[in-house]
């Protein structure tokens, strides 16, 4: 291992030159988002919905438009966090860190006595979407960088430790922004999306979920065939990983569904790129193949979550504030579709299922963000959820850069079920 630095640099340059030459001679198949767009949809005007990267003052957030079941109320808990999405809570619950994608920031919210202040903890990163907190340290995952802030709760000036090398991140960027979370096994779970809409991934580093020890050692692929998961949680009783997954685009308005999946054992294959949703054979990369063939050995989803709905954060509810029927239920945010004419999602749903994933049922919970499905008129896009110490639920709105707090008190005259 003790080569001199020059030899290493020279070898690196040579390898790079060879790679470039190869790339020029024979370009890889384009992992383009529109790959797989059929001729019938060539004139489609569907395009990803625009985000908003400027601050939205709380006074301009139409919180009253949110609809919830009786007894639940939503309030604006924090605002002025453009692009804010996944949240990590400190152990005390007094700090919440919020990741973003293109604006490149991680926010820190300090909650002191009902008043909250927001600061930018770190910026200039390439889509630092993944945030997780464990044993006093905050982990930040950008597409190409991993940072760890030790003792950040007590020391606001903690300098980050660069952990990038230990996590072995692959080079392609598309669908490789992260959602990260620590499991009950103390391991850090990290997804690696397919770098395309539909393709056979260029290497075996993509379309999978891995877990690592907190220091990046012990890498293990625990699920394959996963197109783009950006939300998961661990079942409060079994400890098993349940994850949401985005289905491919450009197959029409009705198919394929986004998925809710369960990992009952490491090593399951969830179908990408050949078999989508509940057994939809891919018309591009599995053209002409039967379902029995394309979906052989594939673990089917617990539930279809709606075509192009953009299923995001998933949180098993274990608090005591909400009525009994919510105990152990999943809250799942659906950020809302772009790749279909009649928009769906833009909501938070509850899903209830048995521990083995049977009998899963989805119920709307938090709605009102989508005002007209036909014209794509919406004002907010719920993205992630976090359960607070008191059992209330934080919901991030990536569109308006705000966090709402959902709480429950039994309606007057009624009693808590």
């Amino acid at each position, binding site marked *: 291992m003790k080569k001199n630095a020059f030899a290493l640099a020279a070898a690196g340059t040579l390898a790079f030159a060879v790679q470039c030459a190869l790339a020029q001679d024979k*370009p*890889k*198949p*384009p*992992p*383009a*988002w*529109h790959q797989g*767009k059929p001729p019938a949809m*060539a004139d*489609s*005007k*569907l*395009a*990803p*919905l*625009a*985000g*908003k*990267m*400027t*601050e939205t003052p709380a006074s301009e957030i139409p919180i009253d438009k949110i609809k919830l079941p009786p007894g639940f109320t939503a309030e604006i808990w924090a605002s002025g966090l*453009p692009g804010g999405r996944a949240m990590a809570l400190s152990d005390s619950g007094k700090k919440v860190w919020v990741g973003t*994608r*293109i*604006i*490149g*920031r991680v926010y820190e919210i300090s909650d002191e006595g009902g008043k909250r202040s927001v600061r930018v903890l770190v*910026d*200039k990163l*390439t*889509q630092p979407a993944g945030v997780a907190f464990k044993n006093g340290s905050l982990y930040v995952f950008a*597409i190409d960088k991993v940072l760890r802030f030790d003792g950040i709760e007590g020391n606001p000036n903690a300098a980050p430790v660069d952990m990038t090398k230990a996590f072995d991140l692959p080079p392609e*960027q*598309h*669908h*490789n*922004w992260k959602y990260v979370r620590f499991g009950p096994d103390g391991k850090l779970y990290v997804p690696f999306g397919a*770098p*395309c809409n539909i393709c056979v991934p260029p290497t075996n580093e993509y379309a999978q979920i891995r877990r690592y020890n907190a220091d990046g050692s012990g890498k293990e692929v625990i699920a394959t065939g996963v197109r783009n998961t950006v939300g998961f949680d661990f079942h409060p009783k079994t400890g098993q990983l349940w994850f949401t997954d985005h289905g491919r685009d450009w197959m029409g308005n009705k198919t394929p569904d986004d998925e809710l999946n369960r990992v009952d054992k490491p090593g399951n294959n969830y179908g990408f790129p050949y078999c989508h949703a509940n057994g939809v054979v891919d018309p591009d990369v599995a053209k002409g193949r039967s379902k029995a063939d394309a979906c052989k050995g594939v673990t089917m989803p617990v539930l279809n979550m709606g075509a192009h709905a953009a299923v995001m954060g998933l949180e098993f509810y274990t608090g005591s504030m909400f009525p009994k029927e919510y105990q152990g239920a999943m809250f799942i945010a659906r950020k809302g579709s772009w790749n279909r004419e009649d928009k769906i999602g833009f909501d938070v749903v509850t899903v209830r299922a048995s521990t083995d994933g049977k009998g899963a049922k989805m119920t709307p919970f938090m709605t009102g963000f989508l005002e007209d499905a036909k014209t794509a008129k919406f004002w907010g896009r719920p993205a992630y959820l976090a359960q607070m110490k008191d059992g209330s639920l934080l919901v991030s709105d990536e569109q308006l850069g705000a966090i709402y707090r959902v709480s429950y008190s039994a309606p007057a005259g009624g009693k808590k079920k």
Partner: protein
Amino acid sequence: MPSRIAGRWAAGLTAFLLIGSADVLAEKRAEPCAKCHGKDGISVKEGVPSLAGQPKVFLENYLVLTREGLRGSDEMRTLLRGMRDPDIVALANHYSRLAPRSLPGLLDKALYERGRRIAVTHHCGTCHVKDFSGQQQMPRLAGQREDFLAEAMLAYRQNRRPGGDTVMAASLHGIPESDLKALAHYLSRLK
């Protein structure tokens, strides 16, 4: 009755003054930009994009990303350092309302036709709209400077243009530089 009419007049006048003063402020803010982007938002410098008629959201995003230090030249980052969101929105508003136009230049028919076909094959008009006038977060390409377009697309393809979505890098993956040049020529000649 007369008082109601007077009331309407007053309201109208106030609205006029408010809009008028916002315009003046935005123009004032845009003064340092004019040196390169032109007073009317039409580029006057090699490699610098025209801004006139760009979608407002695109301009906002670009300005924010540059302020954040993720995009743009050193000069742009210096100009925008510390600029507050309302000023960014005002600037974006200002340029989005100016009339776009292409720069005078020679038309290479063969190159134009090649570029047109590449744009069709790669579905560029899905997001950037059929006439390439852009929409929302997707920029107007029609009439943009050819040198700017060619360099921007190459930079996307080589992952040298971070900060935006990864969609453009993925969309241009594997397209040879000569094809990107044809695309740039075609788009720059559109009205």
